């Protein structure tokens, strides 16, 4: 197995601040006026992902999809349960945080590549392929803040797929790109899976998810509501 997720659970302690007047704020200095409650984000989640398989995760906002993918990526730690991963994991989550607005596209490719575990030599060797795949050859020396969201997504997705992943984790990978790039990305993901890369996808673009994923996991309220063939699970999710 590339990924084995065994009965993981995750709780968050959430604080809620009630609006206060200036006098009330001054009087409460030093005291803890925040009310806290515990939220079970994930409860007893288990699944496996084989080499070359694409697994989709769907669910409403706040159901725990992003928390789950971050636990698999090693960004968050589960309160209980375990995650076993074989091979190099490349998470593409909140991609814009791995780059700097004042750097050029070229400089950001080197920065994001390093964050994804690539060496300087690897990045240099793949640099032309990364730029070519993004289709933004004429913007290599343009500052990042001048890029549109779609352009940024093309570059970062291109870096991710060229970083030799054994396991690719995608969170909302098709949220900003144009239709041509979305179709190209779906083709690439399928080709990567054919070559043995395991892919875990989280997203709300159900058309893309249905086209890409072999199996889909529907999470609702932190628990697995349904899992199975993508067409069946997504059809059931749409009925909700």
């Amino acid at each position, binding site marked *: 197995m590339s990924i084995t997720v065994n009965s993981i659970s995750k709780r*968050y302690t959430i604080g809620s601040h009630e609006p206060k007047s200036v006098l009330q704020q001054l009087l409460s200095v030093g005291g803890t006026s925040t009310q806290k409650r515990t939220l079970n984000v994930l409860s007893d989640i288990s699944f496996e992902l084989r080499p070359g398989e694409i697994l989709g995760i769907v669910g409403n906002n706040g159901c725990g999809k992003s928390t789950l993918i*971050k636990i698999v*990526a*090693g*960004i*968050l*730690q589960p309160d209980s349960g375990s995650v076993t991963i074989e091979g190099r*994991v490349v*998470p593409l*989550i*909140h*991609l814009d*945080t*791995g780059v*700097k607005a*004042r*750097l050029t596209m070229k*400089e950001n490719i*080197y*920065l994001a590549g*390093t*964050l*994804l*575990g690539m*060496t*300087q030599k690897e990045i240099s060797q793949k640099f032309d392929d990364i730029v070519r795949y993004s289709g933004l050859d004429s913007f290599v020396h343009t500052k990042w803040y001048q890029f549109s969201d779609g352009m940024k997504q093309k570059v970062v997705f291109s870096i991710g797929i060229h970083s030799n992943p054994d396991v690719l984790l995608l969170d909302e990978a098709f949220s900003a790109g144009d239709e041509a790039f979305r179709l190209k990305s779906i083709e690439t993901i399928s080709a990567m899976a054919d070559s043995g890369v395991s892919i875990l996808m989280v997203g709300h673009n159900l058309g893309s998810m249905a086209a890409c994923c072999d199996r889909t996991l529907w999470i609702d309220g932190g628990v697995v509501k349904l899992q199975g063939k993508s067409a069946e699970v997504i059809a059931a999710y749409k009925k909700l």
Partner: protein
Amino acid sequence: MTKKYFTDFFRLGWRLALVDFKLRNEGSYLGNVWYVINPLLLFGVLYFVFVDRIVSEIENYPAYLIIGILMFNFFSRTTLELTGIIRESMLIKSFAFPRESLVLSVVIKHLLAHLFETVVFFALLTFLGISFLWVLLYVAIALLFAAFVYGVGLILSSVTVYLVDLGNVWQFFSFLLFFATPVFYVVEQGTMVLAVNMFNPLYHFFTVAREIIVYETLPSSMSIGIVLAAPIITILVGQIIFNRCKGRFAELI
């Protein structure tokens, strides 16, 4: 910690440091000259304020003062930035990488600036009769000092995630430290200030640097011992604290 963890730690620390070093003065007319202007102004103010009172008491006071200012500035700037480096880093929410590399990147960035300042000021020191050979030895002292600052940074950066007030406390503490440590004055034997400074690692780093570079004498074995031990102890303690804290960084920021 695996070999890959260490490789990623150094590679990412270096890359982030270079990026921040480049971006710091981007668009600025004077660019890296700002690194020199700040200590130069402080040197000018302190020198002219104390020219009548201290200068005659301390041999080669300009060199004594320059070393104090440069080393204290490095410590102060780096640790102040480190109090917020984890708390303000969105990278932690998106990538699984050695968290310590964020601390390393800040230390390397300020060390590069510090060495840049040092080259400029030490060129001046050679005119004040300081041997360039001893000046080269400062690089070794600066690396030990940077290792000590890295250890302090591991503690500050991780604890601040849980205790946000520590950032403000440290800012005030740094201000006090500037006056408590002999940056611009000399401590007399048998005074309370000297007794307190025996427990202050900064005092021993400054003393070792000044003894070797300015006065070309061998520092006391106690100061040398503290300069060698302080980085090891702070890194060990810092790493233990950092390891205990880092598991929840992505949740708490």
